[in-house]
């Protein structure tokens, strides 16, 4: 079973993603960027779901650090964010996210497909 790291400060959202992915993947949750970076280095996941609006260090910064880390650089990172203004998608993909999903998650299959696609590609 693949491990997915979920970096999300909102507990409700963590619970929701957990509920959706339960049984399919092993979920490791982190609340903040620094916490997540530390955890990721010791426990390399197969994929990262990353919120952007994180307190302190925001998602783009976390991504930058992941990409800087030799061990983590190849891990697929999917932005899961409520930043859904037009133009946001392009902006995030440009910054190096492998995919971009908006909250609210209206259709969970979208999330599942995106995860499956990234994991298959990487293996």
């Amino acid at each position, binding site marked *: 079973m693949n491990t997915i790291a979920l970096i999300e400060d*909102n507990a*409700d*959202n963590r*619970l*929701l993603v957990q*509920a*959706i992915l339960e049984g399919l993947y092993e979920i490791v949750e982190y609340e903040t960027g620094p916490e997540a970076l530390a955890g990721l280095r010791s426990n390399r996941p197969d994929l990262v779901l990353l919120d952007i*609006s994180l307190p302190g260090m925001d998602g783009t910064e976390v991504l930058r650090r992941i990409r800087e880390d030799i061990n983590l650089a190849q891990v697929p990172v999917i932005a899961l*964010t*409520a*930043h*859904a*203004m*037009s133009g946001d998608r392009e902006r995030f993909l440009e910054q190096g996210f492998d995919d971009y999903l*908006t*909250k*609210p*998650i*209206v*259709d*969970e299959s979208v999330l599942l497909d995106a995860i499956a696609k990234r994991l298959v590609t990487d293996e």
Partner: protein
Amino acid sequence: MKWGTEERRLLAYLLLLLASVPVAFLGVGAASAPSREILGLLGGVATVLALVTAVLALVRFYTGRSAVFLYIGTGFLATAFLDGYHTLVAAPFLPTPGIGAPEDLPAWTWLASRLFLSLFLFMSWLAWYMDHRAMGEAEGPSTEPKEGQGSVYLTAALLTALTFGFFTLTPLTDPYIQGARLSRPVELIPAALFLMAALGYLWKGGWRTEPFEHWLIFALLLGAVTHGGVTVFAQSTYDGAMFTGQMLQIAGYGCVMVGLLASVFTAFKEQDRTARVITETNDALAREVETRRRAEQVLQESEERLQDFLDNANDLIQITDAEGRITYANQAWRRTLGYEKSDLEVLQLFSLVHPHSAETLREVFDSVLSGTPKSGFQVVLRRADGEPVALSGSMNPRMRNGEAVATRTIFRNVTEQVRAEQELARSRANLKALFESTGDAIWSVDQDHRLVTFNSAFSLTVEALTGRAPRPGDGVPEIVAAGQVQWFRNSYDRALAGNRFSATREERLDGVLRSYELFFHPYETVEGMAGVVVFSKDVTRRRQVEIELRRAKSEAEEANEAKSHFMASMSHELRTPLNSVIGFANILLKSHPKPEEGRDREREFLERIVANGNHLLSLINQILDLAKIESGKLELEVEQVDLRELVPLVVRQLEGQVQERPVELRYHWDVAPQPITTDPGKLRQVLINLVGNAIKFTEEGSVTVEVESDPETGTPRRIRVQDTGIGIAGQRLEKIFEAFRQADGSTTRRFGGTGLGLTISRSLCHLMGYGISVASVEGEGSTFTVDLEGGTTQPRGRNGRGVSYGRRGHEGLSTSAAEVPDGSAEAESRTVLLISHRVEFRHILGEYLEDLGYVVETEPRGDEGLERLRQGGIATAVVEFLMPEMSGWELLEHLRWGEGGEATRFLLTGLPGGPAGVDAAVQLDLVPHDVEDDAILRAIRRNTGDQPPGRLLVVEHDQHSRSELHRSLREADFVVHSVPSGPAALEFLRRVEVDVIVLDLRTPSLEGFELVDALAEASRERGGMGAGPIVVLTREPTSDDLRVRLRRMAAGRPEGPGIESSQLPQSLGRALEAGRAKPSGYGPSG
């Protein structure tokens, strides 16, 4: 010594006298006389000689007409007769005539003849002498006989006749005194006469030159000798003395004849000589005439050449007499002054002169007449047609006998030159005025940076800077502040290298920092680069305005940024909780599978949660979309779009939505549409919205997308989306495009949707320049039309608003373009241009203004608005401050540099922080952003000279009365606000300005009088002139003291009793007039 003619002649006379002595002796001494025959013969000879001599003398007389000859001639004639008679008497071979002659008769006839001759010869001298005496000292013989010739002849004839008679009738005595020595003393009488005549002629002196008189003197001397020396001694008729006497007589006749012949010869010789002289003279004359003729010809040719020269001279040449009459004027003169040759006779120089020059010309003329030539003077003459001709001339006199008799003048026409000089002077004055009147400093420097020219503005500036007025020739350090010398040197050098440029400088002048914009222009002459002209413009104020506007712009941009940030944050923050709502509901739904039968109420609830969550999400999305469009952040991505592909794509995309209903979704076109230039994504979004909307409201029937194109060119004109749905009620039609205005509040619940789809569609259409309209019949269906004409494919002109919302059409049918009245002045003065990218702003304000009778044009973009303004005819323009592409600020910047809009008043709206302190060069008002506030409207009315509707505040505690009053006043076209109490009124007045307060005196918490006091106090605090009008309503009849109290407190007047008074509106109208006359009303911004 040499003997002249005179001496020789005198000697001859002496010799004759000497010779006569021996002749006399011989003659007297001769004893015997020749025969009588010989004597007779001699007598005949003498007669003939006398006759010939007489004829010659008379001929001489008639040719010479000298009286001498007349006497001589007549004398000889008579003598001839007497000699003839004597001969007849004496000759023996002729019969004695008449009486029988005694022996003595010949002696008497001889004497008679001689006496007669001597008498006439003497008379001839006497005649000359008398004549001579009468003539005085006059030289020469008289050519006219003194007496008539007849009298001479008559005398001669009478004497002859008397003599004949005497001899015939008188008995003759013995003619000799016998025995006496002087036997014939009577002979002494003719001798004396001859001698006297000889002496007379000698004295006369003619002998000296004339041969006749010379010979005459011979004859006279001979006569004197004959009688005094010979015949006086005769003893008898036939003795030797008589014979000698007769011989001498003949010799005497011969002398006279010789003299006459000599005289005739001389006369002929003289005549011949004279003739020769005459011939010579004639020849000389002929030669002279020829010479003169030639000379004249030469002169004439010369004159012709001169004339030709004068006539063809470009200068004006004239000759006048001393009175100024024109006696000659050459062709150039006549041509220039417009006169014919025939006019010249009557022309007077002083009648031609222009009054301005009359004095000058008179002075010049007088000076010339006094002998002093004048040159280089200028006069103005008038042409025949009155036009002035300026002439420069030189004039000199023609002198005769030291007096000027004429003037000669050469003029040069300098009219053009004078005109050019005047023009130049005018131009110079004009330039000078320009140069001086501009407030800008202007100066020029030469190649060495030395000051050449400058205007007074420059002079003042330099004086203010350096304390010293500039002078031409000043160097750079003398005219600029110490720290700027190098800068100016560099700038001059740069300009001298041929560059034109401008630069900005700041100077501290009188303690104030001022900004100057300097324009450097190199200038060249034919010799090359000559120097630099510099214009310096004081742009301090402009800079301040620019700084203000920049600050305002940056503030507005910050505000806009903040707004965008806010929108993004809001989006994010709204989505986050929705994520949980929708997400968990979905998860729970999985644990509530759809029951085979019956109802699972929990599942239904969860479904509602998911549906509403989704609805909320689309609301959020569309609001954000709308906000984005309105903020101008959405840009068009234009390309060629084929509607034959786009329309089917939309239809296919939405087909899924009708599958469960008996609705036919189709599209069609009569004419195949040509591709258009547009933004495909946005057009598609509009069509999806319209078609989706149509599907949503159509339970059964059809939804048709129709593309209408120009039948000839195939250019698409409009796209219609027609449905057979529920339709829209007429009164709701006009609201259909407004946000959250779906036909019915219930429709959202019934049909779903956010109610923003049409609003977004309209905004997108406007962004692309399309009109959108709706027509509908309730219960039968609706037709939405996108009007493609005047869209992105075409530039938008003044009728480019192309926007309507169906509310004006009959039965809800749309009219796609508002009527713009023709460009009459009135229409122009009421034409308002709204330039804003915000659709709502354009739409709402536009509608409002049109309802008020304004002609409204709209432009969604700054650059297009500028284009429209340049076309003119806009009285007022309301300009959005912040717009994408060209902001209102940039637009005004363009206009400020004179690119149109001169006649337009500008209202700049959308400025953050209010209008404080900003003032641009254009006529500009700054108005708040908020459409709901009628500040813009009031500003427009102010600018177009319209009176804004009166704004009233009703203070009335009774709710029923208040609403009644509110309604009736609104119907009377007032803008009405109403509050229930005094404190509320005060609070309201802190925010809104009103013109008149309608006050119920008895409000519960604050008595009416107290309110009046408070208002007056508030007004005074604002520095106003006192309270505006207050109309007081009372329900009781007002008492006198109440009226007095009210008047004293305020300018209001009680109106009563009661609100039913139909006079209230008129009363308010009067109050408004009064209020406007005052500088301030009530309100926050006095």
